[in-house]
């Protein structure tokens, strides 16, 4: 075989009929662009741009709405009361106030660099205002309420050391989509989940496609008892309801050392996801086996392993690609369900965890849609992009597929 330089091979690959068809598909290109952006964000998260700590620390009061929306007076009062004032008051009451104040933080916010007396003065004023505000019964009719509330908010804001540059940007970004019921940044949690989703999707899709492809090609190529065994194996696995199998496998790990990692999720997904790929590739291999070039390779005396890996499997790569894309969607969507059941991602945020929290905390019932909305929107765009891409891949490479 004459070996060509890689660049010319790549050009040939991009110029095949299927690739040209794919390149003409505007929707597919947009989808690829979106997926590229998600991948970049995932890489950025992996390089610690948003750390796990950013997602788990308290950055403000609970259940703040996003886009810095104006809230009701009760909520504004509540927010100002709980955000910086409370920890500072607690720190000032500490035997060693200096050290305690140094520990106070709210996201990237720290206590303002003022002397203890100044801080004491501000908090005293704020507490006095708080008492007056607390006593106001009908908030809307009290004429001076608004002015007092603004004053109170200004006082509590005075306790915060102003941020500049990157820290300021990150703090504002953290508050962009509001906070969840524990005062954590919804935006950061949503963005961090991109990494989790892509990680789960890519790992499970690659592993499942590889297992499925190798087993499927082996079954189709060798036939006989190998075929019977593999068909028996996938019939067995597909005769258990998918979700039940996922739950049982994920649950089997709840007492093991791996329970806080993603390993149970990977294993649960891979053990159910390989089936579809295996079935498809087996069918394709049965077809390929009858083709002349395979028979030529056999006549040339190549070993069956070599034929399998060099001639059969590469010619099923388009099916692998399609299946990869489909399984990735499956993994991302199943992760949400597993996490909702408490068996999926633990110890880090994910869209499933966010949706579960929104459901469990009664966010939705109280009309607070920021958390579930963020998770859904982030997930929707990614899954939609992959859905469009899978369709385009299917149209280009496997148009006869049903």
């Amino acid at each position, binding site marked *: 075989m004459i070996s060509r330089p890689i660049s010319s091979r790549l050009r040939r690959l991009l110029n095949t009929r299927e690739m040209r068809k794919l390149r003409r598909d505007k929707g597919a290109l947009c989808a690829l662009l979106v997926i590229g952006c998600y991948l970049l964000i995932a890489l950025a998260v992996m390089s610690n741009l948003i750390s796990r700590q950013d997602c788990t620390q308290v950055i403000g009061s609970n259940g703040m709405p996003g886009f810095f929306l104006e809230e009701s007076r009760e909520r504004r009062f509540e927010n100002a009361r709980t955000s910086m004032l409370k920890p500072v008051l607690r720190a000032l009451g500490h035997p060693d106030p200096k050290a305690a104040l140094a520990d106070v933080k709210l996201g990237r916010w720290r206590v303002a660099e003022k002397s203890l007396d100044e801080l004491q003065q501000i908090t005293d004023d704020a507490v006095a205002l708080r008492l007056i505000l607390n006593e106001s019964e009908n908030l809307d009719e009290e004429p001076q309420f608004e002015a007092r509330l603004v004053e109170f908010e200004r006082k509590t804001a005075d306790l915060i050391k102003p941020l500049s540059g990157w820290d300021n940007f990150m703090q504002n970004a953290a508050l962009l989509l509001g906070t969840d019921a524990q005062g954590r940044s919804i935006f950061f949690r949503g963005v961090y989940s991109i990494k989790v989703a892509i990680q789960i999707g890519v790992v499970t899709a690659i592993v499942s496609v590889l297992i499925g492809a190798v087993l499927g090609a082996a079954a189709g190529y060798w036939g006989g008892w190998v075929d019977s065994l593999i068909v028996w194996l996938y019939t*067995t696995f597909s005769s*258990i*309801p998918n979700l039940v199998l996922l739950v049982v496998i994920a649950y089997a790990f709840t007492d093991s050392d791996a329970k806080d990692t993603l390993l149970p999720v990977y294993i649960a997904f891979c053990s159910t996801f390989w089936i579809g790929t295996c079935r498809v590739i087996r069918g394709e291999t049965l077809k390929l086996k009858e083709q002349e070039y395979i028979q030529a390779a056999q006549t040339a005396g190549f070993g069956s392993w070599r034929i399998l890996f060099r001639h059969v499997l590469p010619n099923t790569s388009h099916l692998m690609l399609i299946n990869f894309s489909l399984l990735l969607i499956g993994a991302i969507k199943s992760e949400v369900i597993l996490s909702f059941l408490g068996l999926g991602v633990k110890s880090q945020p994910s869209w499933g965890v966010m949706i579960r929290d929104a459901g469990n905390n009664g966010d939705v019932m109280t009309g607070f849609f920021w958390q579930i909305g963020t998770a859904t929107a982030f997930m929707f765009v990614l899954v*939609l992009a992959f859905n469009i891409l899978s369709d385009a891949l299917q149209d280009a490479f496997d148009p006869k597929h049903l």
Partner: protein
Amino acid sequence: MWVYIIRRVLYNIPVFLAIVLLVMVLLRNQDPVPGLLGKNATQQEYDSKRHELGLDRSLLVQYGALLTEIVTFNFDREMWTQSGMTVGEQLRSAIPTSLALTLPALALTTLISICIGMLSAFARGRWLDKTLVFFAVLGMSISFLVYIIFGQYFGSYQLGRLLGRPIFAIHGYEMGWQNWAYYLLLPVLISVIVAMGYDTRFYRAVMVEETQKDYITTARAKGASDRKIMFVHMLRNAMIPIITRIMITLPFLVTGSILLETFFGIPGMGNVLLTAILNNDFPVVEVFAAIFAGMFIVSIILTDVLYALFDPRVRLQ
């Protein structure tokens, strides 16, 4: 044909045995006894409980006992987590509940999806088709959970507030078909919406495949109307993939829907199964897995037989 059926049944016996074994082994990664007795029990109590449940026997003996139970249809073992209730009773109450949810959902989904799929296939390439396909993809890209959460919020909570009386229950279930709409209609509608994206696309693909066949051209040439081509010629020929799809889905109906049932508090099979798995109630899970596997295998064989009945070209061998 009978030879074929018998051979297929024999061929699937190892599959059945493997499923039962697989489920048993997977379940036994967890020790149910501490959960059943609490953490304060003594080792002796643990051991006697283990003996009582038969967990001290070797895996093969337990496997044999379970198989005997299944083969003789003797499901009178008591549930581990609910004393006084046998596995059979639990399944007998949970499976019909699930069916009341999943059967109407399947029927509705299939009907609507076939209609939309046909419409879409017939308008292939035109804006109607493009819009329908686009919406199907949009619908498929949203998580099941989000549909449920918002369906519950708007469908039961807000609608109930708007009208002053609850139309759909938020949570809970009562037997009886007069209560059906109150408790189950909303879950059914949600599951129809969720499944429609996939089904529409599938049936559209089936119909598109059919429109490209020669017999359609022939029918056109002889002057048959569009409506006749669509409903008489195409639908009949598309019956095989449609029947296959429905047949394959049928056994899954008894599993109910874990998510819908937990959200709406419906005591169906999905709910029972999830509770049983999370509380290590092995008998329920094992027996149900065996029943399901049996139904699944039967439905696959039945599909092939139906093929042969519907399409004289298919030979069973």
